[in-house]
C-alpha cells in the first residue's frame, strides 16, 4: 500500500456552516486504484468531504491534494468524475444527451464523446433507454444516468456520493462488480454510503461522524479493532468510544 502512488490526500480539513462543524480536522490518504468507502450516518460530513475534493467547498482550514495537484486547481478536474448525492441532470434532455453533454464538458470531442456515452450507458445498463427524456425515468434510473455522466470521460478519480440509493439489489451488485473492475484497471474510487453491505466491498473504509474521522482500515481491521463480528456493530462501538 505504501509503495502505491497517492491519488488523494486530505490534511486537517475543517469547514463550518454557521455553527455547524461539517468537517472538523479530517485527514485521509487514498492510494491510486483503491476503493475507499466513507461510512457514516446522515449529517456526518461525507458529502461535504467529497464536495471539497472537487473544489465545491472552500475549506476554513486544511489542504486537499488531488492527483498530485493542490486544490483549487481547475485543470485537474478533467481527470475527476463526481456524482452528486442527488442526481443532478437536465430533466428535459434525453439520457444520451445528458451523458454526451458531460462528456464534452470534460473535454471529449464529438466522436470520442459519442463512443464513451455508449460505453457508459452500457455500464449502467441503460442502453435501451438512451432516447428517453430524463424526466420520464424512475428515481433509480436517474441515479444510474447520473453515474454514467460521472464516469463517461473515464476519470482517474471517481467520487461517488451514495451512488446506489434507489438502485435494486441485483443491479447494485453488478455495479459494484464493475467498480471493482475499474479499480483493478487503476481508477481510484471514493464512495460514500451508509449501507453496511456495500462497505464490505471497499478496500479500505473511513468511519466519519460529527465531521471527524473516527477510524480507518479494512472491514476486517475495523471489526477486530472493535472486537465485534459485524461491521455495523463495529461502527456503533467505535463511535461510542470516541465520544
Amino acid at each position, binding site marked *: 500500500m505504501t509503495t502505491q502512488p497517492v491519488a488523494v490526500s486530505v490534511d486537517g480539513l475543517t469547514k463550518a456552516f454557521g455553527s455547524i462543524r461539517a468537517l472538523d480536522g479530517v485527514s485521509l490518504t487514498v492510494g491510486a486504484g483503491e476503493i475507499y468507502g466513507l461510512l457514516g450516518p446522515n449529517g456526518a460530513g461525507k458529502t461535504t468531504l467529497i464536495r471539497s475534493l472537487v473544489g465545491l467547498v472552500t475549506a476554513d482550514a486544511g489542504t486537499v491534494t488531488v492527483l498530485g495537484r493542490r486544490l483549487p486547481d481547475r485543470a485537474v478536474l478533467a481527470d475527476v468524475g463526481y456524482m452528486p448525492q442527488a442526481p443532478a*441532470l437536465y430533466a428535459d434532455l434525453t439520457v444520451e444527451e445528458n451523458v454526451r453533454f*458531460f462528456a464534452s464538458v470534460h473535454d471529449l470531442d464529438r466522436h470520442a464523446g459519442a463512443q464513451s456515452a455508449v460505453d457508459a450507458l452500457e455500464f449502467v445498463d441503460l442502453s435501451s433507454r438512451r432516447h428517453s427524456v430524463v424526466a420520464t425515468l424512475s428515481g433509480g434510473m436517474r441515479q444510474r444516468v447520473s453515474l454514467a455522466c460521472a464516469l463517461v470521460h473515464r476519470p482517474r478519480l471517481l467520487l461517488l456520493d451514495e451512488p446506489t440509493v434507489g438502485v435494486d439489489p441485483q443491479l447494485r451488485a453488478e455495479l459494484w462488480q464493475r467498480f471493482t473492475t475499474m479499480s483493478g484497471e487503476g481508477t481510484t474510487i471514493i464512495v460514500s454510503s451508509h449501507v453496511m453491505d456495500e462497505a464490505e466491498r471497499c478496500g479500505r473504509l473511513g468511519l466519519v461522524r460529527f465531521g471527524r474521522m473516527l477510524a480507518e482500515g479494512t472491514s476486517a481491521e475495523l471489526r477486530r479493532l472493535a472486537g465485534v463480528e459485524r461491521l455495523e456493530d463495529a461502527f456503533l462501538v467505535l463511535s461510542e468510544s470516541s465520544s
Partner: protein
Amino acid sequence: MNGRRAGAISLRILQQFRHDRRTLMLLFVAPIILLGLFYFLTGGGSSLPAVDVVNLDRGPLGAVLAADLGQSTEISVTRTTPSRAAGDLSADTVAAYVVLPPDLSARALSGDVIAPTIHLEGTQPALTQPVLLALDQSVTRASRSLAATEGVRVPVLEPSLDYLHGGPGLDTLDYFGGAFIGLIVFLLVFVVTIIAFLRERSQGTLERLMASPLRRADIVVGYIGGFMVVAAVQAAEVVVFTLYALHVHNQGDVALIVLLTLLMTLVAVNLGIFLSMFATTEFQAVQFIPLAIVPQVLLSGIVFPVATEPGWLQVVSRLLPLTYGVDGLRDVMLKGNGLTSGPLLVDIAVVVAFAVALIGAATATLRRSAS
C-alpha cells in the same frame, strides 16, 4: 368542501410566506414603488418640456404672449433667436420651438386668425400636447390683457405645425413600434434566461459544471452563445413582422434595428444570469419582473419622455440600459439616423458597455455562488 383541509392549505401558505420574507416584502413594497413612480411620471413634480419661443412680432401681442408663455405651467420657455432655436431642436435640448410671426399683432387686431409656427421634434407625441395647450391658454390670456388698451379681441388660433422628424403621417404605432421591439425582446429574453439559469442552479447541474474543468467564463459565454442563436432568429422575426406586416414607419437601416435588438438581447441574457444569483426559487425569479422590469419600462422613455421626468428620476433613467436601447431604436426608425450620427453612436456604445459590464457581473456572480 372540507373547512379543516382547506384551512390546512391556507395555513401552509401563510407559513411559506413567513419563511419567504422577500416575497412578502415584494407584495407590500412593490406597489408603493410602482404607484410612486406613476405619480412622478404623470405630473407630480415632473419637469416641464423645454420650449424655445422666438418673437418676431412687430406689434405688442407677441411680447405679451411670449411673457405669458414664460409663466406657463405646461412648458418651460426660453426666449431666443430663430437660429438658436433651430439648433436647440436638432440637438434635442428642446421639445419644440414656437415662432410668433411679424404680422401676429396685425392679424389679431384685424380679427384674422393668427398662425404661429410650432416646430416640433416629432418623435415624442407626448411632448406635442403640452405645447399646443400652453399656446392656446397664453393666446387667450394675452389678448384679454390687451383688450382694453389695444382693442384686441381673442383671435382664432391656427398654429401651423412643422416636424423635424416624423410628421402628421405617423400614428401611435409608428411612435411606439421601435421602442416596443426593444422592450419585447428584452423582456422575453430576460425572463427565459433567468428561469433557465435558476433551473441550472436548483437542479444541481450548475454545481456539477463547477466540479468540471469548465471555467466560469465558459459557462457565461456558453449561455450567451445558446441564447443569441435563438435571439437572432427572434430579432429577425420581430423586425420583419413589425416592418412588413404591421408596416411600422421606418426611416433608417434595417440592419441597425437588428443590431440594436441583438445588443438588447445580450444585455438581457447577462442581466438574467446576474439576477438569478439573487433568487433561490423560480418563484423569486419571477418577482424580478415587477421589480427589475416594470420600473425600467416606465422609466425608459417608451411612454413617458425622459425629458419630462423629475430631475432625480432622469438620473435613474440614465442608469437603465433599456433607456438607451429605446432611444437608439427611435433614432434609427423615426429619425433615420445611421452610424454617422453622434447620439445613435452614444446609445449603441452605452448598450455595449452595459452588456460588457453585465457579462463581468454575471461571471463574478458565478464565483460567489460556489461556496
